[in-house]
């Protein structure tokens, strides 16, 4: 896949008198690992809900995988994968049952699901655990599995909302290697994180401050532009410059 995976131009979303996303313009290239950062309440979640077809914008334009966020939201949902720390898999279903459920939801045939299940379990080295209930797996495994399930229907873009929260430092790194693996196959990865070392793992970053996209660039560029030694410092300077106290988006 070549070209552009996500385009946003002047994307805006208001809730009553509050502008949660304020004229945001950026693009994400196909196959890129794009990090989307911002303080709590800066508008990240609202922007992600628009880009995943769950919420219509108030004004501006955006397309995801070539589909329009106003008119083609169902097509967007079919073209993307999504995982978050909060909603991932069903704890009371087994590993295989979860995979089959998501495969069926995405309209894959039984034979395709079976083949991809075997492949997925082998890649994750979960072959022995296929019939275990997901609730019994350690958190890091759940998250690795949830990521692979989000890719089951081979979406062009996958959205990851804080995928590694609370995960041990080694498993967190294994998770990022899965991300690199998917990006290497051409999948575009759109990821949020509160770990600033993970911000460094992204090809490019967009940083939201009070509804606006105040910085866009590679980690290296952003550090140079802000004369900062780390992404932590860049983030701190940006967020301190414009964040309103108190209100959630």
């Amino acid at each position, binding site marked *: 896949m070549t070209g552009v995976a996500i385009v946003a131009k002047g994307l805006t979303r208001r809730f009553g008198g509050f502008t949660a996303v304020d004229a945001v313009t950026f693009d994400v290239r196909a196959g890129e690992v794009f990090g989307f950062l911002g303080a*709590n309440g800066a508008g990240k979640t609202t922007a992600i809900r628009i880009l995943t077809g769950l919420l219509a914008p108030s004004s501006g334009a955006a397309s995801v995988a070539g589909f329009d966020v106003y008119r083609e939201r169902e097509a967007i949902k079919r073209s993307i994968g999504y995982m978050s720390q909060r909603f991932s898999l069903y704890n009371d279903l087994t590993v295989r049952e979860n995979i089959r459920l998501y495969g069926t939801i995405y309209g894959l045939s039984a034979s395709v699901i079976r083949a991809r299940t075997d492949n997925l379990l082998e890649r994750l080295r979960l072959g022995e655990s296929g019939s275990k209930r997901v609730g019994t797996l350690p958190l890091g495994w759940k998250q690795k599995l949830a990521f692979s399930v989000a890719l089951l229907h081979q979406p062009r873009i996958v959205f990851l909302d804080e995928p590694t929260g609370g995960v041990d430092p080694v498993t967190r790194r294994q998770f990022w290697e899965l991300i690199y693996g998917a990006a290497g196959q051409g999948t575009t990865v759109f990821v949020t994180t509160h770990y600033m070392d993970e911000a460094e793992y992204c090809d490019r970053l967009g940083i939201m401050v009070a509804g606006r996209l105040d910085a866009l660039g590679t980690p290296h560029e952003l550090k140079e532009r802000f004369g900062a030694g780390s992404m932590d410092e860049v983030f701190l300077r940006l967020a301190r410059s414009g964040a309103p106290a108190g209100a959630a988006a």
Partner: protein
Amino acid sequence: MSAPAVVAESVTRRFADVVALDDVSFDVRAGELFGFVGPDGGGKTTLFRILVTLLLADSGRASVLGLDVARDLWAIRRKVGYMPGRFSLYPDLSVEENLQFFASVFGTTVEAGMPTIAPIYDQLAPFATRRAGALSGGMKQKLALSCALVHHPEILFLDEPTTGVDAVSRREFWDLLADLRGRGLTIVVSTPYMDEAGRCDRVALIQRGRLLGVDEPAAVARSFSGAVLEVRSRERYRALLALRAFEHTDTVHLFGEWLHYTDRRAGNGIAADVVAHLRTNGIVADVTPIAPTIEDTFIQRMGAPEAA
């Protein structure tokens, strides 16, 4: 030196066949800011619940402020402030109503608690009538901290107060803790973020119910056995894969902008050898020895991640 604020001796707790805490022993000095650092499922919450008398250990002993956690629970409860990991305020009550509620539960008033909570509450005051559920993540944490402090406790237990909180709010929260510590409060706090360990007087690394070490943050980092090389390459992922295939590699990990590498061998010339190996794979890299971080030590001591 005054008596320790917390003493734990061989505390063990199982849930069915899971050993949540495995023979855990440590002490917290009075006035100390003491951190438990480790991933979810490590046993931090179980340990905190035992120390604040909400859960009994299967074996071992623990005391808080000289009081036994199993026998003296009512005396302990009056003296500790506890902020659980899950948001535990009433979302439908306003900021000030939540505070009034927690003050009244402890038989005191918000006014009496104000000297203690003022530095935190001042930031919340503009939102006094807002529903707690409508606050941002960072503000919720500050309200929860105010509620845990309103009865003027002698020791504070904060279970993952910064989980899911953005990097700026996290830093502000730690600034508040440093201020409270400066006023003499003993604070026991847990976090999954390794970068927060440096804000503590001492840290305990905890993983799968076991303590991997207890010491000052700098000493934990220094206790890394062996040498860490930082590998700086524009082609980080390719370099990682090339080093995985290198016969002398012990460990290689993504670490922020660069890679951290350890070699099976000891001695000089290793950095140059790594550079040469990468060059034969067509990768340009700088390789230099660096001081290990707490996260390096944690990774070294934690062993292999849990099997599925």
